[in-house]
């Protein structure tokens, strides 16, 4: 392959992918700080790109080491020393990024499903209890108001937990590999905490709204609205900053953000757990706020006028 024609032929048949021709006085020009050009012929494919990359890395390293080398021989020795160094790399996890993306996408969507489901079912149940005559009959009964309120919340929580269980079951079917790992447990725990918040929010709305016809509108405004605002359907990366700043005020944001964090976790260490727990804590704080508000509203409405 000493002739140009043979070189071209070998390149054409992909017998070789990259030919470097070193011009005369290249080494002396290089050592003098000039920038001598190598003559390159390539197939412009993957293998050629790899060769190009390695050549550039080599020349960059040589250029850097040139300043501490007195002679060409010393430069070659320094280069050999640098390239002979090895680093041992151990893979600590085998990330199934496709599965994790699917799981995160599913659990982000669960934000809408849980909110809509809880609000619809719980408001429907509470609307029966909120009918004025039934409410009056309950108010004049000997049932302690706080106890009654608590029992109503606990009985509705059974429904919310059943709904959550259903969605977890679906996730086990859809992305079982991920769900039976540490990631899956994190998703399940995060969604459970959010279920408590959805229950509390539904309970608050159920205490505020007595009109069954208004329910569809409320589901759209709250469940669909917060899902859009907080990135359940559109990834947060594509959303404007001011929308995300507003979304901070909604529990869905913290739930979805935690899902996205889980997706990107490399190793489950204390720092990761702390960050996840902070997110879940914020969601729980929202839940507590909703429960207290529902209680105060119910207490205020003990009198009919």
């Amino acid at each position, binding site marked *: 392959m000493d002739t140009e024609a043979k070189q071209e032929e070998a390149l054409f048949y992909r017998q070789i992918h990259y030919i470097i021709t070193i011009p005369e006085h290249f080494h002396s020009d290089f050592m003098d700080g000039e920038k001598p050009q190598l003559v390159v012929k390539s197939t412009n494919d993957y293998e050629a790109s790899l060769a190009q990359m390695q050549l550039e890395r080599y020349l960059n390293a040589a250029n850097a080491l040139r300043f501490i080398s007195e002679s060409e021989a010393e430069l070659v020795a320094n280069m050999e020393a640098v390239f002979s160094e090895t680093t041992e790399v151990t893979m600590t996890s085998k990330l199934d990024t496709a599965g994790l993306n699917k799981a995160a996408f599913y659990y982000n969507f669960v934000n809408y499903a849980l909110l809509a489901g809880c609000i619809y079912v719980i408001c429907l149940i509470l609307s*029966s209890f909120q*009918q*004025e*005559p*039934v409410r*009056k*009959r*309950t*108010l*004049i*009964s*000997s*049932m*302690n*108001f706080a106890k*009654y309120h608590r029992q109503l919340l606990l009985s509705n929580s059974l429904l919310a937990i059943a709904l959550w269980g259903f969605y977890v079951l679906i996730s086990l079917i859809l992305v079982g590999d991920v769900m039976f790992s540490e990631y899956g447990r994190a998703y399940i725990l995060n969604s459970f905490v959010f279920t408590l918040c959805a229950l509390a929010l539904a309970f608050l709305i159920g205490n505020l709204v007595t009109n069954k016809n208004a329910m569809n509108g409320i589901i759209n405004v709250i469940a669909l609205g917060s899902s859009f605002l907080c990135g359940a359907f559109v990834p947060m990366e594509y959303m404007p900053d001011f929308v995300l700043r507003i979304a901070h005020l909604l529990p869905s944001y913290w739930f979805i953000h935690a899902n996205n964090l889980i997706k990107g976790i490399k190793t489950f260490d204390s720092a990761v757990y702390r960050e996840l727990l902070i997110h879940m804590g914020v969601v729980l704080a929202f839940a507590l706020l909703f429960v207290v508000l529902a209680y105060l509203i119910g207490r205020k409405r*003990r*009198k*009919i*006028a």
Partner: protein
Amino acid sequence: MSHVIEVTHLTKEYKKLRAVDDLSFTVEKGEILGLLGPNGSGKSTTINCILTLLSYQNGSIRIFNEEMRPSAYDMKRKIGVVFQEVAVFEELSVYDNINYFCGLYIKDRKLRKQYVEDAIALVELQNFQKFMPKQLSGGLLRRLNIACGIAHKPELIFLDEPTVAVDPQSRNAILEGIKELNRCGATIVYTSHYMEEVEILCDRVIILDQGKLLAAGTCDELKKLASIEEKISVEIRDLDEAHRLCIQEMEQVESLSYDGQVLQIIYKQGQDHLIALMSYLQKEQIPYHRIYSERPTLNDVFLELTGKELRD
């Protein structure tokens, strides 16, 4: 007798409307007290104030010698209420509705089962236990409403117009049930604008109008407030002017009215008016279909006190 309820100077205002105006009365143990008045007279408002469902501007309310508060749960255990509106769950059967509302008071399941069955028997709904409320007629629904309110065997029962829009058969069943509850020792406060019901049921009656107490007492005591003693109605056709004038001139006749079908004569006092009138009609050979005498009704008392009819 001890006071079961003691209402003193109760005043309830809605912005510019005074719904209850300085109302004071007591309810004694074991009696049936009737609150009688036209729609909007303040009967339901008074009951809602007593039950702490409404706040009020002035006055005090004591039940079983204790001040009534929203959190007086021990006191509420002894109280049963049947509201004017039917207060049941559409989603539950007759039995389950009564069981639910009884469960707000009675925790013991065995005892509650017995109480529910007793309530069903009292309102005669044995054959409808598995029916849903929407499958019941208006009268049966009212009976269910009553059963839900009294199933826990309260000592004091408020019945707020429980027979509104009820067929005669159900009305009789309801009234019999109320008498039975009273016989079993319950004190009852019964509001209605049906004076006949109040006369049949109540030991004492309070007449309200525009939130004010107009009169109080037994039915007989109240009737004495009317300035008439007797009303005689005669179904008679084509009574001429001359005869009407003659009847008007008869002794103790207060007033006379004739609509072409029925002649109504009101006597202020005295007795034997029916005999005198029949003698006159016979003597003048005036034919008539029916003749009957009535004592003054509570409506007459209300008319006398307010210048308007109870159902105006």
